[in-house]
């Protein structure tokens, strides 16, 4: 690493540290509303690290799609069923910061290069080889507002302009200086973390509320998985967002936007654990048709189904698990053994026949291949995924002292997964959990390790009968119906979506809201879009409680909820 880069990293780290302790909490009192659903305490103010997707969305929104955002950032840790909740406890390691640093410089270099500067920089410097503070100020004033999701403070703007000035002098180039300062801005906590800035609640003495900008961020990241746009920032700036009508106007606008698809796709990618696709591997000797392109298509197919059912047709959420309408690419069609009408690689609509065993997203490759071993299917993994991701139930991990040779013996006289898993019945420590997973997973044994249809395994006819919470089935589409009719399905998505929107694990107190939301979801015929609106308009989404002691203004607050305050898995399942 060059000494120049090291120096700049140190400067960036110093800036990071300075700003981390300087996120202001304003103290403006404003009135509250009464029609936002059940009141809850809310969580304590937090900072959430931008997810990789959010980072990408912001860069694209601010600088356009011509800016390539390469490289990866540290992954988040799945927490209570969602990666988004892991963002709350995500830290930036020194290595992670270096990734951000490189990413920021790559972006900044593209923004100021000869090709893009004309469009992305709103002014032309007086001289190319010297600082131009006025131009830099205009640039940072504009883009900083979107990057920080609020107007820059005077100090922040001064820092950015000064940094650009000094770098321009040192490098002998206005644009290089501007790029250096922009890169620094892209590594600040104000950009990398979404902060719950709070202010005193004017309607409730002693309480706090989110500032209008924090409220705008929460709403925007929930609905679009992106930073607030101009209109939303303007609503925040004017204070409209604190009024019921102002909030409603923004929610209506944003939920009618095509960008709602981005938000919904992000939520389900998270809920369905689609990050696993990035590391999914299959044995090419056993599954020669599997490729990364197929994995990408498999994920995209499920997301398209979700958008189609929930947003385009606005059908019952539960229909997602029985729908036969879908879209396929040639690679997917090959596995489904159906003709592709766009063999050159495009997507084409397809509807599985009414008597087909494939029904709903659980029978798609995006589920069956994702939850299987590299060389074979897995009723256990599929049953576990189904219970945990769709029904919000918890399947404990296997005890540490299990001898797996009993189940993985290649010379064992077993032909099918059902026979293999039968060995678990002889081990009491295994039986309990496998009874939760396997009877469901057996219903998907018609699909091999990459989701291709089969009726035999090792020349032995498959028995795909099973049961889900007391309902027997004999075919995968009957299992799909069993999932659809399972009461836990709807309550699970309500709780997951609520937690996702708030960016934190649910507490007992949140049950007041989720129960009401669930009832309204039922009353609205399980219309997912209405559920999204309901949450977006709720007081619960923006509820925040002051940490103890109430912080002084200009202090960042960050606390974890008490351990006993978090809803346990079993309680969550019951609610």
């Amino acid at each position, binding site marked *: 690493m060059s000494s120049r880069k090291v120096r700049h990293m140190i400067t960036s780290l110093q800036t990071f540290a300075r700003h981390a302790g300087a996120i202001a909490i304003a103290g403006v009192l404003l009135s509250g509303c009464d029609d936002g659903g059940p009141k809850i305490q809310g969580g304590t103010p937090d900072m959430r690290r931008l997810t990789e997707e959010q980072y990408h969305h912001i860069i694209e929104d601010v600088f356009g799609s011509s800016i390539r955002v390469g490289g990866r950032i540290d992954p988040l840790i799945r927490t209570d069923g969602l990666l988004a909740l892991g963002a709350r406890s995500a830290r930036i390691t020194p290595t992670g910061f270096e990734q951000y640093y490189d990413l920021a410089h790559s972006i900044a270099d593209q923004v100021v290069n000869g090709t893009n500067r004309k469009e992305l920089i709103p002014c032309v410097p007086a001289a190319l080889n010297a600082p131009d503070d006025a131009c830099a100020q205009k640039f940072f004033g504009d883009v900083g507002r979107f990057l920080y999701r609020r107007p820059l403070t005077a100090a922040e703007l001064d820092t950015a302009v000064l940094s650009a000035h000094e770098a321009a002098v040192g490098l002998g180039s206005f644009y290089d200086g501007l790029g250096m300062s922009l890169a620094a801005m892209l590594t600040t906590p104000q950009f990398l973390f979404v902060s719950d800035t709070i202010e005193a609640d004017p309607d409730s003495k002693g309480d706090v509320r989110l500032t209008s900008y924090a409220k705008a961020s929460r709403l925007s990241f929930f609905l679009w998985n992106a930073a607030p746009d101009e209109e939303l920032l303007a609503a925040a700036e004017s204070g409209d967002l604190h009024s019921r009508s102002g909030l409603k106007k923004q929610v209506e606008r944003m939920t009618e936007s095509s960008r709602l698809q981005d938000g919904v796709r992000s939520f389900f990618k998270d809920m369905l654990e689609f990050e696993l696709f990035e590391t999914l591997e299959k044995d090419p000797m056993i599954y020669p048709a599997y490729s990364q392109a197929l994995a990408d298509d498999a994920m995209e197919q499920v997301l398209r189904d979700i958008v189609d059912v929930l947003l385009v047709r606005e059908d019952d959420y539960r229909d997602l698990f029985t729908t036969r309408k879908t879209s396929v690419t040639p690679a997917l069609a090959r596995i489904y053994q159906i003709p592709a009408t766009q063999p050159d690689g495009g997507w084409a609509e397809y*509807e599985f026949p009414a008597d*087909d065993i494939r029904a709903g997203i659980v029978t798609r490759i995006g589920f069956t291949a994702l939850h299987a071993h590299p060389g074979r299917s897995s009723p256990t993994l599929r049953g576990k995924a189904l219970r945990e991701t769709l029904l919000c139930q918890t399947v404990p991990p296997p005890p540490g002292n299990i001898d797996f040779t009993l189940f993985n013996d290649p010379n064992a006289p077993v032909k099918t997964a059902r026979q293999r898993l039968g060995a678990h019945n002889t081990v009491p420590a295994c039986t309990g959990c496998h009874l939760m997973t396997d009877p469901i997973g057996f219903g998907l044994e018609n699909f091999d390790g990459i989701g291709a249809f089969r009726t035999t395994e090792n020349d032995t006819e498959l028995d795909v009968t099973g049961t889900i919470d007391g309902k027997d089935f004999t075919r995968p589409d009957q299992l799909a119906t069993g999932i659809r009719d399972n009461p836990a399905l709807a309550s699970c998505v309500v709780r997951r979506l609520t937690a996702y929107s708030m960016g934190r694990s649910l507490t007992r107190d949140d049950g007041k809201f989720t129960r009401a939301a669930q009832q309204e979801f039922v009353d609205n015929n399980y219309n997912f879009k209405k559920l999204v609106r309901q949450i977006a308009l709720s007081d619960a989404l923006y509820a925040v409680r002051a940490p103890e002691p109430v912080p002084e203004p200009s202090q960042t607050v960050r606390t974890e909820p008490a351990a006993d305050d978090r809803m346990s898995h079993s309680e969550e399942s019951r609610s």
Partner: protein
Amino acid sequence: MKQIERGEMVNKAACRIVKVSAAAIAGIVLAGCSQSDEAGRAPSASAQSGRLGFVVRHWFTAMHETKFMDECNQGLNISNDEIWWRGLSKVDRAEKTQNGLLETLRRWQPAVRRGPNGEDVCLDPTAVTDPKFITVNGDVSYGINLDGTTDGRATPKTCAHKKFTGLNGEPAIDNQMYRLVGCTYGWRTNGIFEVNADEMRGTSGIGMILIDVTGVDDTRNDDDVTVSFYRSIDQFAQDSSGKPLPFSSYRIDTNPDGTARYGDSLKGRIENGVLKTQSGDVRLPFYGNYTFSQHIFKDMQLELKIADDGKTADGMVFGYYDVEEFIYHVTGTGVVISTAGFSCPALAAAAWELADGYPDPETGKCTMLSSAFRIDTHAAYVVKPEGVKAAL
């Protein structure tokens, strides 16, 4: 499904449940079949009703080769390069081959331009008279009895020719194509001419033949199906090792007016998983050795054995093969000729001499060669624009 031909979909009352081994076959599950068999299981996931489809991956002339080359007791043909080389003086050899440093592949152009006036003897095979082409003089061959005679005597539709015996003792086999090329390196096992052409089809996706079987009620036994042949405009879908992936979709080539560019059809039947067509005239796309041409058949018959898992089907194509088109293809392959072990003039002359089918009404000379080809296919979906129907 919108673009998939619907007219061919069948939904006959006789439709029966497809059993386990056949259920996974693409495009074979029947429309209107009940959703489960006696055991309550689904017969299949998804499939294309009433149809079978295949893409031809390998196409080779069917060659019967014995261990000691008994079928070619005069040995193999000499190459164009060798004939050219023999005709050069020592001085010319040194001059034209850079003292022997110019390899065969790199001197193919001067080698074929050995006509008296520098003519390309492949583009003009009559420019020189080369040593007589060596042909098969064995008695055994792949093929079928195409002319219906037991002795190969002339008929209104055929010229007199010698018959072969089949590999299993079948009498009166007609296969003059084998007799013609059976003693030429380029056509024998691993011979460059056919292997190179086959590889080029595999990697380029040009000249790929699609076989579309419609009217299928039962994939193992059906006495009335229609077999249509098309050219694909899509390349082979292959796995990372280069093997074709079964159940891939291929679009047919069409004319500007939307009709199929190829599309000849034959009636056929399926017996115990073996598809057999009646005979008829068929044109097939062909590409190989840098040359675009066609297989032009009369009285063509297809025989394909469909594997139990439905992923592949291997078999034979029989019929009278157009001599002119054959010579056009062979003599147009340029550089490949240099290493394929034959002389264009000798091969062309022998082809006309051995032709045993369809005499020219004016000259009485036969214009087609009885032939047999081996083909390997993979299960495929043949995607046709709406409105394109089988010719029959």
